[in-house]
């Protein structure tokens, strides 16, 4: 089986400007992965499937990962002018102070695909991944379902649980949660609602009317009391 470097070279030869990046995996199983640029992902995926040497005709697993915004604290040495009392007189003194500065590394959503080959029978997967620009409004990634049908339900699941929108997916709907559900439960900042299946019912309307009625009656009673006195 080819190494990730060889696969990267093969991709770059076949799809010019594909923008493939190797992501090393520090774990002992050494399943390194290739990060594809979303703009060329479908072309690269088609190449991986149809290339006679690689023949990655079998998409085993597709899944999402959430990388939320991370706050990184850094210690920086800063020179500051401080007013100090030296020998009874106030003086401006320069001083080196250590300061912790925080900055936010923007998060993203990631889709990971594990490829194998039925024709060649590789033992370890070829892992490809794509990431979105951010986690809120630019969450589109190209769908690989036209290349491997196996991704159909799995991409729907990623859409459902993570909120990645796969453009080009033939049937992108929620799969596990119900259609009216709003949030994406596998995101790390997801907060469970108090009542999952709250729906305004006829009963709520009646309650609201009863409350309004009670308030009106109380007002009326107060008015009559005032008139009586």
């Amino acid at each position: 089986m080819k190494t990730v470097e060889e696969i990267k070279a093969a991709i770059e030869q076949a799809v010019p400007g594909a923008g493939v990046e190797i992501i090393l995996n520090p774990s002992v199983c050494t399943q390194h992965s290739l990060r594809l640029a979303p703009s060329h992902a479908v072309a690269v995926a088609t190449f991986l499937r149809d290339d006679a040497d690689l023949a990655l005709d079998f998409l085993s697993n597709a899944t999402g990962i959430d990388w939320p915004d991370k706050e990184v604290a850094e210690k920086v040495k800063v020179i500051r002018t401080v007013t100090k009392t030296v020998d009874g007189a106030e003086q401006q003194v320069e001083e080196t102070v250590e300061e912790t500065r925080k900055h936010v590394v923007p998060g993203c959503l990631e889709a990971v695909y594990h490829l194998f080959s039925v024709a060649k029978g590789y033992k370890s997967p070829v892992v490809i991944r794509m990431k979105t620009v951010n986690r809120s409004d630019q969450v589109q990634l190209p769908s690989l379902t036209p290349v491997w049908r196996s991704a159909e339900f799995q991409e729907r699941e990623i859409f459902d649980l993570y909120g990645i929108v796969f453009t080009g997916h033939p049937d992108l709907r929620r799969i596990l949660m119900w259609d009216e559900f709003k949030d994406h439960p596998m995101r790390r900042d997801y907060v469970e609602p108090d009542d999952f299946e709250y729906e305004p019912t006829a009963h709520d309307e009646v309650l609201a009317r009863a409350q309004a009625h009670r308030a009106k009656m109380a007002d009326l009673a107060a008015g009559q009391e005032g008139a009586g006195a």
Partner: protein
Amino acid sequence: MSTSGIIQDKREGWNRPPVIEPEGDADLLEVAMGPHHPSTHGVFRMDVALDGERVIRLKPVFGYLHRNHEKIGENSSYLASMPFTDRLDYICPLTNNWAYALSVEKLTGQEVPERAEYLRVILAELTRVVNHTSAIGFLLQEMGASGTPLMYAFREREKILDLFEALTGARMMVNYMRFGGCRVDATPAWLADVRKVLDSLPQFFDEFENLLRSNEILMARSQGVGILRPDLAVNAGITGPMLRASGVNYDIRKVDSYGIYGRFKFRVPLGEHGDIYDRFMIRLLEMRESISIIDQALKDIPVGPVMDPKAKLRGFRPKPGEAYGRIEGPKGELGFYLISDGSPNPYRYRIRPPSLINLTVLEDMCLGSNVADVVLIFGSVDIVLGEVDR
């Protein structure tokens, strides 16, 4: 999960389901099969559009049993997820245990002692027998052979579940495997019991095979029904007996030879037509191969520890990294994808469910056939909803 619009829905592409137009101008009928249909093996719904008896469109609807198992896995420690894996595919908990243990072992690089590897193989193959007998029993039940064949299957299943209970303490929720071995050792008496059950199984298979092979009604209803093309099967990620019934030689026990499968001699049965009949003959033949594997394992099983003595149970924190491990479960490729960030809980805990992905082609197989055949085609996929919905 709404039904509206499935009649109008048409999709295109070479790997898409064919578009079947209704004949004549009669009204189409939309039927929701399930979620409490006896044939759906749990809470699962198929929205079917019918032209007379013919299926024009079919959409599976999932999620009735969804409990977000993956989120639970991310919020509990590595070992705490082990009992939860029993609840995925509750017909074969031991293979689920193995797949999870194997993935974590890939992540950490732990060694598994010889005896534990042998025990894992014996248990996994017994599980395969349990799963395939039940699957065939359910098929015969759905074909109208009410009760008797299923009870035959369950009689044999019970013998094997007794073995599981004797070894692990539970019939189904076994929680048996650990990272780097197995929880408890098997006694010689237990291995003798396995041998006894093993000797009684071939006779039962003969009996069962007679039911399948020579029954005219069964042949009429299953041959040439629900055909799956091999190229589509590979493209759609179908695994397990379903893939091999379509004639594709892909068995992860052979391809990956994970554990110690490289040491055993066994054949991989392949189908020719990819219809329901093939799928069930493959399962029968696979059970016979399983018997042969267990037989070889019982002969060679060494004495020794069943846990890696260096394995840590408390304070288990794999180094940062990720791993995808997979095994050939009775229903297909069962994989676990784990990402560790060095904390006691996995950062990402993903299960690749064979049952869900095998349903991808359900529509392709059902289109154009009668609505009564949908029940059989669905049954031949062999799913468990605990794993589909997770």
